[in-house]
């Protein structure tokens, strides 16, 4: 059975090759079909393999397939080995499942775009790389996928590259990611140096042996974490993600919400064994996660661009996941990763549907009262908002509460992390409701002549399926406190370390209380939004005037981009300019040009020898001969 593993990866590659090489001979519809079918193939095979996996005994749920040795250099033997264990199975299913829906959705969304074949080629390449990332056992192959998804992200953000700001956004994503990648590479080198292998399975197995060397483990895990920070858009490397919204909306949904940005979460969860041994790193992860979650949430409150709201929401939710990771609740993080993939993809695609229906309008101030024009979209968006807000019965409720519970338990009671998480939850409910209200309720503020319309069924059907998933996804992890069995946790527990399964041993009464509190917080967030944006729309303006500083800070994203520009980019530019004008132009260029000019001058002098007179040439020849003869005589 495990020999089918490579097919999961192969199918999108075929799709990429077909679309990329033969795209010009395909119609738009065929292109989308090829792309979707290959992903569907991957999805079906992973589903089939998952069923197979479930039939195995709990502790041996691990399918491996070694395809070939990619880099055999001395001790460094990089095998292309694919591993399907519970963790990667969940990831693969989320990726292929959500990916499939988004592929189908894209057929409708991208209709009529001249670059649609290129789009599907990139999308398939992304799927190939992402699956490599999550299936690989080897860090190098994982890194290949890691870089590959970065590349695809860059290509897709800058998909409409003729718009310079979009091309710039792509480059920004690429460059910011590089910072994390550098750390990742160093971490790999250190790992190889210490363990002599880059197979994550082996490392996990060997890790306890070096548990004494805390400093090394902390360094390695910190570096890996920096890599994850870059990829998963955590503070301080989150700045690329909002700009990444320049790409087509399905791309935002797939790459910048559901899959790629969760790669950092996956990386840490995958190396849970290693991270568990580095408490300092774990604490750092938790703090970074909390800061990110809260920080992004506060920015999201004042954004007017519907996709920007979602983008900051994504950052915030990723911060949530890191918070869970930092508290050792790997399972909770993966659970939230999954549910988040469902509802955030749903929200993005819904937003895409709105944008589509509004004729490429993204500013929420120019929307309003759309619930009649696009009822299906409204319905699914409602589900998404409720899910992310943590309303009981929907998936977000379960996963978020698990994280909060983990934070509570980790801190041994009420603590800062828990409180920040709670605050974030409230803010999340507030801004998501705000988005919903601004978009679908109130007065219509769109320009005259616009005819908002419902999206075609090729777009709405995936939305409905995702809405269903956004509701149902949470039931995989119903906590025991609510009489559930927390299926996902049990499924994941063989892979993640013992602490990951935490939660079910807790005091059920306290857990129930905490749930009530979080529901209350979420509810009040929604109510507040209702009060401000529907009941008394003028309050928003009043608030703005009352707290101008706060509003400006939030609306301008706390001037982080400007800050970066001032403290990193500007000095860098200045140094670069110094090097350019001082070193490059005056010394290096001058040396090169001078060498050229000198040669030219020497040539000018020497060419006088070239008189065009045969005899002069002959005499030169003779001079050489005479010289040789004299040398012979002299010797």
């Amino acid at each position, binding site marked *: 059975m495990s020999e089918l593993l490579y097919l999961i990866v192969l199918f999108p590659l075929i799709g990429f090759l077909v679309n990329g090489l033969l795209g010009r001979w395909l119609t738009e519809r065929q292109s989308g079909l090829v792309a979707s079918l290959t992903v569907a193939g991957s999805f079906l095979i992973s589903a089939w393999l998952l069923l197979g996996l479930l039939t195995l005994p709990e502790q041996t749920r691990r399918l491996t397939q070694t395809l070939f040795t990619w880099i055999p250099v001395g001790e460094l033997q990089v095998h292309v080995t694919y591993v399907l264990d519970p963790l990667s199975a969940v990831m693969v299913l989320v990726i292929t499942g959500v990916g499939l829906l988004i592929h189908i959705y894209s057929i409708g969304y991208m209709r009529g775009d001249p670059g649609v074949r290129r789009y599907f080629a990139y999308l398939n390449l992304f799927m190939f790389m992402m699956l490599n990332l999550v299936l690989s056992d080897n860090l190098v192959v994982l890194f290949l996928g890691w870089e590959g998804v970065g590349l695809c992200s860059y290509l897709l953000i800058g998909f409409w590259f003729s718009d310079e700001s979009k091309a710039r956004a792509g480059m920004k994503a690429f460059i910011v990611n590089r910072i994390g990648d550098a750390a990742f590479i160093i971490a790999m080198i250190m790992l190889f140096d210490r363990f002599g292998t880059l197979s994550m399975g082996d490392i996990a197995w060997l890790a306890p042996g070096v548990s004494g060397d805390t400093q090394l483990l902390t360094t390695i895990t910190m570096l890996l974490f920096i890599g994850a920070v870059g990829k998963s858009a955590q503070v301080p490397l989150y700045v690329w993600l909002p700009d990444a919204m320049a790409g087509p909306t399905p791309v935002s949904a797939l790459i910048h919400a559901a899959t790629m940005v969760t790669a950092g979460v996956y990386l840490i969860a995958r190396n849970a064994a290693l991270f568990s041994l580095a408490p300092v790193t774990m604490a750092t992860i938790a703090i970074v996660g909390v800061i990110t979650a809260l920080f992004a949430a506060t920015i999201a409150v004042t954004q007017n661009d519907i996709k920007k709201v979602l983008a900051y929401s994504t950052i915030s939710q990723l911060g949530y996941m890191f918070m869970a990771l930092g508290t050792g609740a790997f399972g909770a993080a993966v659970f939230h990763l999954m549910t988040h993939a469902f509802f955030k993809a749903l929200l993005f695609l819904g937003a895409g549907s709105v944008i589509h229906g509004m004729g490429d309008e993204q500013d929420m101030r120019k929307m309003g009262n759309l619930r009649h024009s696009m009822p299906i979209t409204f319905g699914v968006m409602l589900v998404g908002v409720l899910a992310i807000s943590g309303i009981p019965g929907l998936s977000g409720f379960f996963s978020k509460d698990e994280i909060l519970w983990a934070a509570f338990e980790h801190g041994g009671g009420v603590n800062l992390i828990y409180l920040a998480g709670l605050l974030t939850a409230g803010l999340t409910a507030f801004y998501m409701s705000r988005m919903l209200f601004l978009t679908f309720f109130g007065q219509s503020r769109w320009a005259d002549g616009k005819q908002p319309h419902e999206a075609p069924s090729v777009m709405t059907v995936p939305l409905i399926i995702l809405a269903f998933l956004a509701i149902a996804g949470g039931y995989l992890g119903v906590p025991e406190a609510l009489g559930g069995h927390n299926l996902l946790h049990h499924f994941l527990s063989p892979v993640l370390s013992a602490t990951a399964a935490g939660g079910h041993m807790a005091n059920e009464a306290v857990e129930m209380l905490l749930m009530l509190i979080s529901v209350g917080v979420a509810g009040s967030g929604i109510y507040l939004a209702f009060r401000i944006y529907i009941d008394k729309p003028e309050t928003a303006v009043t608030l703005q005037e009352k707290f101008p500083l706060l509003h400006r800070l939030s609306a301008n994203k706390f001037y982080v981009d400007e800050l970066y520009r001032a403290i990193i980019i500007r000095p860098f530019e200045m140094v670069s300019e110094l090097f350019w004008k001082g070193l490059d132009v005056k010394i290096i260029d001058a040396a090169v040009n001078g060498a050229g000019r000198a040669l030219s001058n020497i040539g000018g002098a020497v060419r006088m020898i070239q008189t065009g007179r045969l*005899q002069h040439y002959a*005499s030169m020849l*003779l*001079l050489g*001969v*005479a010289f040789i*003869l*004299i040398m*012979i*005589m002299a010797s």
Partner: protein
Amino acid sequence: MTSILFYMFASLLIGSSLFVVLNRNPIYSVVMLVFAFANLAALYFLLEAYFIGILQILVYAGAIMVLFLFVVMLLNVGPDRARPQWAAMDRWWFGGMVGVVGLTLLALVTRGMGPLRSSAADIDDGFGEIAPLATDLFSRYLLPFETAALLLTVALIGTVFLAKRRI
């Protein structure tokens, strides 16, 4: 006797060669060069290189110099119209060059081979005739020999190509 002949032919050779170089009329130069080569052939005979000597006449006098004569006649190149107007630099340059080369060569000759030796190596009967040459040419030097044939063919084609107005 032979040495007297040798020096006689040698001086004729050098004299006529000088004439070739110094004379300003190309036709005379050609004729004198033929004469020089005839003298050279005589030297070859005296050096007991009979085949080479006859080849010298056959190839140089019979073929090569006829071509020269032909070209001179065809182009109807008269005597150089004026004395060559050399720049002073050229004169010194070339003169110095010739001097250096000539002196170096002579120095090499006199210095490199030790004291005067008049005794030549003992040679078999028929040395310098066709048979030993042919034996070597068709055994040890077969490949160069065939290559030379190829070279001639190439030269033939090249000549036709170069000299013909329209191919």
